């Protein structure tokens, strides 16, 4: 793009076509005050604080909506502008309550800052202040409408960027106020991502977990990475006297790949650290009971028991790289299993075509023209990644094509979304292999053909993620995708890790299925068997050691339990979706896994060389179903992923329900059905959902519990077959 020159306040600035005056000024260090403008949002021009004078124009113009034109002369500091600005601020302040001493936003409030710097020194109004007195309290978000300046930032954030449209403006004129539908966040379908709180320039939208808890300026700020899913979001943890007070994303300031967007787990899941289910001391089994012991004693026993023994290592893949390397040094790396097993299968599938076990980083989507997503429920497993994909379409104008078996929130912005039965996903991808190269190829479906046409000669970023990663045919899917990318040439493949360090675990260990473990001592680290290895029994062993931050059901099976850190207490590095991410400790934990492990003797380990067979051909579909069988996907709710809602009091307030989504054809009007799996049954309430395709069903759960054992078997928790018992 060719740049041109505009003059702002006598300074010659370089501008590009399509840029607004405000953007040019911001880049050149000229400050123009704003309220309704936000870097991440569509400009609206509602508040009129950013008025500037343009030479030749009769009236003042709003800098946030004014496009820069060649040879434009803009003045931001003339008397006329200053007077207009002060007038606007005076009008806004006129009806703004004087609650700064108790307002949680004071100190980082944009109205405070702009008001002090540009506002009038005195108000001329003698009329009483308008008092709406409408406070809307949700479980986690509170709207105080007296403080609202109606900039509509929250509404644009919620409706456009997040795609939820929960907040709206009710009534007109001076009675206007912000509210979700019926004043109820849960009824309105709020996802509780907290972005509205983050962009609010005043203290109107509040974090209820933080309400009146502290003052923003006195807290210590630690930038760290969220470990509650694989998105690897950068976030700011605010602490005071070593206690976490809140987590903020800081949209617009955050320089992480998530740009400040967080989800309900990242924003409110910090209080898992203060969960009442936290383990306080090491425990040792004596007879039938577990007795509290000291850490020294626990380490002594552990040293004795593991000496010379082969160890089965069960890992949860949100451990840091440092922890993982220490674990492999102490416990060996031959008998290791992890919930990243399916992720490693996906990487393996890609490697069988490309020859290297690596996936592209998420920023590869920025450089591409088309984003090709193969995955279901990315918005539940990795909510922030789904938001970023949505923003790629909305802000950057990229095309998004989605292939999957279930409807998704991303379909609303997708150029084309192809939803087919799980059996047909690979066949569909094969149509693309032909369609993108052969100009005259026709799959017989216009939708597929048009999508394939959109891929031709374009830079494509393939993204595999969501619950598709847990499908039995994930290796074949990723192989087919890699083959397609290989044939197209100009393409990258990213696999979204479901957990914080799935990539690190696959890099460091040769993961085996739990049945193939041969050790005689079980070591479980940070894991919960039911959640991470559903349907798996612990192998018979002489001794079982559990390293866990919480009281889990595994403790009953353990001989020795050692507490470790979790959440914002973690420090180290993880291999995230976007290169290596740093974790900084916000709170100092009592027990640190690396410290405990370093006191154990290292053992000589050898790592088998992993063989890689390169075969340049697409995968074959391995799924086939009989009549009457339905493909199920076990979907852990957004709030329940990583058991966050079980341990966090905040997130528990908005936790979802356990329900079965069935197509009306399959549901046949039943309210409750019994699912019959290979090893068990489960009665569950049904929600009819006609956006599903017949023959598929979504089993939404908040937490994977023991009663699902009969239906699901690790590692494939998605697209498994089940029957519905006929009444």
């Amino acid at each position: 793009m060719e740049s041109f020159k505009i003059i702002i306040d006598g300074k010659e600035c370089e501008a590009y076509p399509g840029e607004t005056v405000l953007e040019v000024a911001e880049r050149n260090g000229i400050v123009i005050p704003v309220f309704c403008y936000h870097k991440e949002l569509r400009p609206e021009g509602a508040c009129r604080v950013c008025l500037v004078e343009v030479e030749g124009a009769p009236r003042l113009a709003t800098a946030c909506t004014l496009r820069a034109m060649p040879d434009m002369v803009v003045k931001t500091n003339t008397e006329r502008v200053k007077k207009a600005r002060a007038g606007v601020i005076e009008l806004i302040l006129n009806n703004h309550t004087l609650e700064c001493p108790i307002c949680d936003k004071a100190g980082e409030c944009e109205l405070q800052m702009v008001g002090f710097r540009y506002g009038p020194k005195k108000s001329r109004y003698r009329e009483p202040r308008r008092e709406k007195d409408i406070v809307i309290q949700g479980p986690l978000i509170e709207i105080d409408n007296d403080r609202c300046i109606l900039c509509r930032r929250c509404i644009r954030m919620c409706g456009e960027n997040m795609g939820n449209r929960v907040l709206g403006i009710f009534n007109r004129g001076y009675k206007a106020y912000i509210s979700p539908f019926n004043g109820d966040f849960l009824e309105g379908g709020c996802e509780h991502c907290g972005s509205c709180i983050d962009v609010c320039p005043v203290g109107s939208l509040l974090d209820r977990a933080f309400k009146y808890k502290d003052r923003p300026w006195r807290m210590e700020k630690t930038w760290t990475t969220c470990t509650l899913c694989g998105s690897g979001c950068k976030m700011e943890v605010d602490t005071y006297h070593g206690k976490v007070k809140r987590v903020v994303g800081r949209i617009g300031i955050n320089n992480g790949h998530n740009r400040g967007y967080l989800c309900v787990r990242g924003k409110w899941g910090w209080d898992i650290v203060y969960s009442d289910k936290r383990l306080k001391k090491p425990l040792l089994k004596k007879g039938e009971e577990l007795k509290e012991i000291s850490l020294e004693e626990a380490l002594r026993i552990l040293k004795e028991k593991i000496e010379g023994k082969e160890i089965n290592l069960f890992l949860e893949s949100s451990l840091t790289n440092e922890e993982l390397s220490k674990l492999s040094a102490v416990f060996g790396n031959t008998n290791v299993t992890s919930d990243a097993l399916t992720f490693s299968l996906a990487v393996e599938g890609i490697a069988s075509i490309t020859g290297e076990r690596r996936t592209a980083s998420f920023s590869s989507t920025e450089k591409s023209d088309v984003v090709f997503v193969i995955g279901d429920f990315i918005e539940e497993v990795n909510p922030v990644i789904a938001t970023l994909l949505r923003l790629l379409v909305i802000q950057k104008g990229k095309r998004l094509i989605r292939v999957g078996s279930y409807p998704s929130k991303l379909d609303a912005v997708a150029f084309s979304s192809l939803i087919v039965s799980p059996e047909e996903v690979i066949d569909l991808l094969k149509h693309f292999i032909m369609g993108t190269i052969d100009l005259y190829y026709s799959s017989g479906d216009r939708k597929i053909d048009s999508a394939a046409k959109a891929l031709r000669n374009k830079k494509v970023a393939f993204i595999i993620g969501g619950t598709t990663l847990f499908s039995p045919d994930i290796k074949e899917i990723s192989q087919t995708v890699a083959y397609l990318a290989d044939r197209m040439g100009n393409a990258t493949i990213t696999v979204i890790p479901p957990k914080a360090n799935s990539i690190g675990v696959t890099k460091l260990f040769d993961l085996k299925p739990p049945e193939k473990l041969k050790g005689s001592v079980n070591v479980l680290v940070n894991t919960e068997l039911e959640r991470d290895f559903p349907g798996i029994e612990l192998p018979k062993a002489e001794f079982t050691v559990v390293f866990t931050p919480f009281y889990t059901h595994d403790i009953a099976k353990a001989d020795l339990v050692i507490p470790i850190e979790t959440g914002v207490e973690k420090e180290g590095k993880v291999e995230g979706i976007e290169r290596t991410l740093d974790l900084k400790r916000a709170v100092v934990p009592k027990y640190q896994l690396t410290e405990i492990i370093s006191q154990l003797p290292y053992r000589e380990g050898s790592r088998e060389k992993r063989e890689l067979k390169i075969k340049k051909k697409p995968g074959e579909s391995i799924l086939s179903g009989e009549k009457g069988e339905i493909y199920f996907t076990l979907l852990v709710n957004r709030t329940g992923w990583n058991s966050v809602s079980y341990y966090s009091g905040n997130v528990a307030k908005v936790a979802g329900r356990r329900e079965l989504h069935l197509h009306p054809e399959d549901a046949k009007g039943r309210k409750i059905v019994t699912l019959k799996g290979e090893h068990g049954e489960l009665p569950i309430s049904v929600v009819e959902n006609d956006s599903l395709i017949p023959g598929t069903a979504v089993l939404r759960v908040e937490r994977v519990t023991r009663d699902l054992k009969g239906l699901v078997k690790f590692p494939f928790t998605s697209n498994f077959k089940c029957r519905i018992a006929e009444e």
Partner: protein
Amino acid sequence: MTLEEFRLEVKKLKNSGKYPSRKSYLLPALWIAEKNFPQINSEMIKIIAEELEIPLVEVEEVARFYAMFHTERKGNFVIRVCTNLSCMLNGGEEILKEFCRLLGISPGETTPDGMFTVESYECMGLCDGAPAVTVNEERFSKVKVEDVPKILKKFGWKG
């Protein structure tokens, strides 16, 4: 009208194909609710949102934006007294006061028996007959203060 009937009405409207986009059916659907129910409540908003596939809050926004939709319970007869310029100059405000005095309520309120709602209104396009009053769909021009009880009695006021 029950809610189920209302749902059928909205469906019928949606399938009529009168308007180019889904969102355009929102105002007509709200009109059905306004005419058949004493108030537009969240149940009806939910039905409209489900049928037209519009976010819930967007329907409520529209319903609350327009003054002619009643999200609060209204009476059987809605008395609208114009207080805009020409009606005001011809004594519209006195007429509004008279209505309020006779019914014992203030503008925007409903009588306890649920019969009348009095609203002070903006221009209704009846400036030639200022001051103007409408009761539901019926209009009265050049109303004088003495006429007020007569108008009320016509609609069954016992006072």
